[in-house]
């Protein structure tokens, strides 16, 4: 599952920038189109895709690159969502909905970016505390421990009434998330994780993931790099949580359930562990597919036939799809490798008749 | 009795066996020699049906074993005593032996064989209720062989029975191997201990990085200096 690192190339700066430039240009066009031309519904989908990209790509940093298969990352998303919302909620609303907040928290209302950053850092801090104990565990034990972490978070969310409103809806979060800021964060996430993947740091992590015995003999440095990756991914997940909270405006602890965790993991696995481009593709595919299925769930007309609503059908189909991928293509769509834009361009150039020798 | 014809086996991209052809006739003791990583264990695992060949066939009494599961192959009497003993540590000696005979329905035959195993390896009889994990290395090897014998083997495959044992135990093990051979049990013996193996073998094959590079009768191979070459020159290569 090693990403193909392209051979050392002496090509000019222009061709090296070609890849990223094209991608950024495409993204820019895409965002402009969705902002100005697309309707509300499409914009919502674009935002959701963006948030999912952050969630899945940051999860890939932990699960795919280091092999620390976290099942409880949704807990960090929850921390991000609640923390940021508590910071951005207008003071007047806090007085009404959360009268028992500690003084300083009740009096402050921060702008979106600082709140998001703080939320992300908080998630990273929690990850540090939790992760320090978990990093030494092996395989399945780590996964279940992270699940335990998620349960702990859920219990705290449901019971810490004064701060979270318990099981009740946390509403009134100012809708700061737009197509732009979500996708700026998404691009940042993709870039950061992709760069890590190609760095020496990333290669070390991946070789540690593939050969635990060798890794154990390397000792402390492996644990530390895993912890670092875990915290970074928690930060990004926390940011995603904040973005999501400010998109959806109201949520409750139920939004951070295990089912959520599973959807994220599904997108990750289908795209392929260890591949950033795979994650992006996986996210787009699954998000679009589940939207279509969700519409279908409400029942629709197929010519003269009326298909009745089948709630939960989309979940079942997701689960079946997931199993199929695991059985037939366990490495995911991209097989752990990345899309190489330069390679694609080269192939296009070669295929053009008359231009250059094969 | 058993014939491998041009068998190719690979694990993913790694070729473990390439065009290997081996024959074991009724009543023979055939030695399969070679350095670490030469493919000897892979050959046994292929015969046992745990690993499937990519090309070539494994014929038993003329019948192709391609579709047979490990369960079927054991039922045919091809019993492997695997490398590293792999006895069931949490089970007692008796229970281990019972597992060797798990396929059999003839309780009196099973009991007879069990007594025979205890006569071959008296120490097992003394420790019959002890758990496998508490046995010494040599005793575990004896138990592994005994367990294989309980399966009523027509062809007994032993994978490195002398591995990690003190010389005096190696002698004891080979004494038993000789006795089994004398009784007419057909044996395919994988060994790194060339001297001992060739001392008991009727014929032998030498594997190196997945290919058969030498074959001959025990006598021929004993006097063949190339064997040392095979071990020395391929040893570094063999470390995959």
């Amino acid at each position, binding site marked *: 599952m090693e990403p193909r690192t392209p051979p050392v190339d002496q090509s000019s700066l222009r061709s090296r920038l070609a890849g990223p430039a094209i991608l950024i240009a495409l993204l820019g066009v895409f965002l402009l189109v969705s902002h100005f031309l697309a309707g509300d519904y499409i914009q919502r989908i674009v935002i959701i895709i963006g948030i999912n990209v952050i969630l899945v790509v940051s999860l890939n940093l932990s699960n795919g690159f280091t092999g620390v*298969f976290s099942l409880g990352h949704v807990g960090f998303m929850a921390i991000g969502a609640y923390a940021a919302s508590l910071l951005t909620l207008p003071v007047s609303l806090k007085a009404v909905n959360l009268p028992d907040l500690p003084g300083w928290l009740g009096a402050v209302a921060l702008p979106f970016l600082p709140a998001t950053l703080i939320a992300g850092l908080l998630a990273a801090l929690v990850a540090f505390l*939790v992760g320090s*104990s*978990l990093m*030494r*565990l*092996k*395989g*399945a*034990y780590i*996964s*279940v*421990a992270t699940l*335990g*972490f998620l*349960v*702990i978070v859920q*219990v*705290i969310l*449901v*019971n810490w009434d004064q701060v979270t409103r318990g099981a009740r809806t946390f509403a009134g979060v100012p809708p700061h998330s737009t197509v732009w800021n979500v996708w700026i964060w998404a691009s940042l996430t993709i870039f950061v994780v992709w760069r890590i993947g190609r760095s020496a740091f990333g290669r070390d992590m991946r070789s540690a993931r593939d050969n635990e*015995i060798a890794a154990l003999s390397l000792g402390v440095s492996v644990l530390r790099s895993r912890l670092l990756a875990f915290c970074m991914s928690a930060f990004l997940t926390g940011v995603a949580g904040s973005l999501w909270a400010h998109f959806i405006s109201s949520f409750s602890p139920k939004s951070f359930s*295990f*089912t959520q965790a*599973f959807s994220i*993991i599904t997108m990750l*696995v289908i795209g392929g562990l260890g591949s950033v481009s795979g994650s992006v593709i996986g996210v787009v595919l699954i998000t679009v597919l589940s939207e279509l299925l969700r519409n279908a769930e409400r029942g629709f007309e197929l010519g003269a036939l009326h298909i009745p609503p089948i*709630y*939960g*059908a989309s*979940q*079942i189909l*997701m*689960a*079946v799809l*997931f*199993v199929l991928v*695991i*059985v037939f293509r*366990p490495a995911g769509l991209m097989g752990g490798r990345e899309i190489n834009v330069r390679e694609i361009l080269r192939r296009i150039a070669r295929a053009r008749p008359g231009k250059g020798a094969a | 009795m058993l014939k491998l014809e041009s068998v190719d086996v690979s694990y993913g991209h790694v070729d473990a066996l390439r065009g290997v052809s081996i024959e074991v006739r009724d009543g023979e003791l055939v030695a399969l020699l070679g350095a670490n990583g030469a493919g000897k264990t892979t050959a046994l695992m292929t015969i*046992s049906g*745990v690993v499937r060949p990519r090309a070539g066939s494994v014929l038993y009494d003329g019948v192709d074993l391609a579709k047979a599961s*490990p*369960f079927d192959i*054991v039922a045919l009497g091809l*019993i*492997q005593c*695997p490398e590293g003993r*792999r006895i*069931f*540590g*949490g*089970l007692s000696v008796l*229970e281990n032996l*019972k*597992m*060797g005979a*798990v*396929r059999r329905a003839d309780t009196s035959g099973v009991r007879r064989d069990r007594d025979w195993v205890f006569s071959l390896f008296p120490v097992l009889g003394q420790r019959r209720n002890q758990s496998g994990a508490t046995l010494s290395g040599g005793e575990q090897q004896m138990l592994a062989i005994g367990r294989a014998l309980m*399966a009523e083997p027509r062809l007994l495959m032993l994978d490195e029975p002398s591995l990690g044992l003190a010389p005096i135990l190696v002698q004891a093990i080979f004494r038993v191997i000789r006795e089994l051979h004398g009784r007419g049990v057909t044996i395919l013996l994988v060994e790194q201990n060339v001297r001992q193996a060739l001392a008991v073998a009727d014929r032998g094959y030498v594997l190196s990085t997945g290919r058969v590079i030498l074959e001959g009768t025990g006598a021929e191979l004993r006097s063949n200096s190339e064997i040392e070459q095979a071990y020395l020159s391929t040893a570094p290569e063999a470390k995959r």
Partner: protein
Amino acid sequence: MSALELLLQQLINAVSIGSLYALMAIGLAMVFGILRLINFAHGDLIMVGSYVALLLMTLGLPFFAAAAAGVAASTLAGLAMERIAYRPLRGAHEISMLLTSFSVTIFLENLAIILFRPTSRAFPAPAFLRSVIHMGQLRLASLDLIAIAIAAVLLLALTLFVRRTNIGIAMRAASQDLLAARLMGINVNRVIATAFAIGSLMAGVVGLLWSARVGKIDPLMGFNPVLKAFVASVIGGLGSLPGAVIGAYVLGGLEILLQGLLPSALTPYRDAFVFAILIALLLFRPNGILGSSEKEKI
């Protein structure tokens, strides 16, 4: 009520809960031991059995018949699960199998939601399961005593099974060294199916007792118990049958202990504390109390 009587009452409480966890954990441990698979869908077997029993009772069947059918349904569901979802994945990576078991969970839960709607339904347990026995100052729930008794019987039966019968010994052998078991001609498919059958049967029994205890059932009822069962297994050491049982009773005791010791403001956080303690335990004993020796094959 004197301190001793209070202690006794809580002890029975703990043993009763522990018994339910033990029956669940054993099912998980058996499958994990042989396949290295953490079957999270095990929890949904509780749900399947309970719904089948409820349906039959609604149709007029007496409790015992409905209960037997429920247990049978759980067992069949478990066997189906093994055949359809897990057998094709034999030998796959640990994580793949774990994730597949989650897919099965999602599948079953949503199927139940589609068939039965997500809201919970009342489970009409018969009187003998809901009565209270008075012994002096003690008020003992008949359900607790029955749960303890049933667990004791089943655990004893299982112990005899794995020690005396060939297939039981084969199960132990397979969980220690699956490859060697195959080489001995042990019918691994049958052994695995048996492990699933026994575990699922026990899950079915737990389902009925659990439903009677809680008084209602819903499609997602299996998630919490399987998580607890898993914690119990991990405490005792994944893959070890005695470990699973010990871990289960430790967990039951821990829960009751925390319930009693935590100040009332913190009791809702009890589960959080349990998991925190689990994580702490794994720090010191990464393989659990009786940790199975996972030999690294170098």
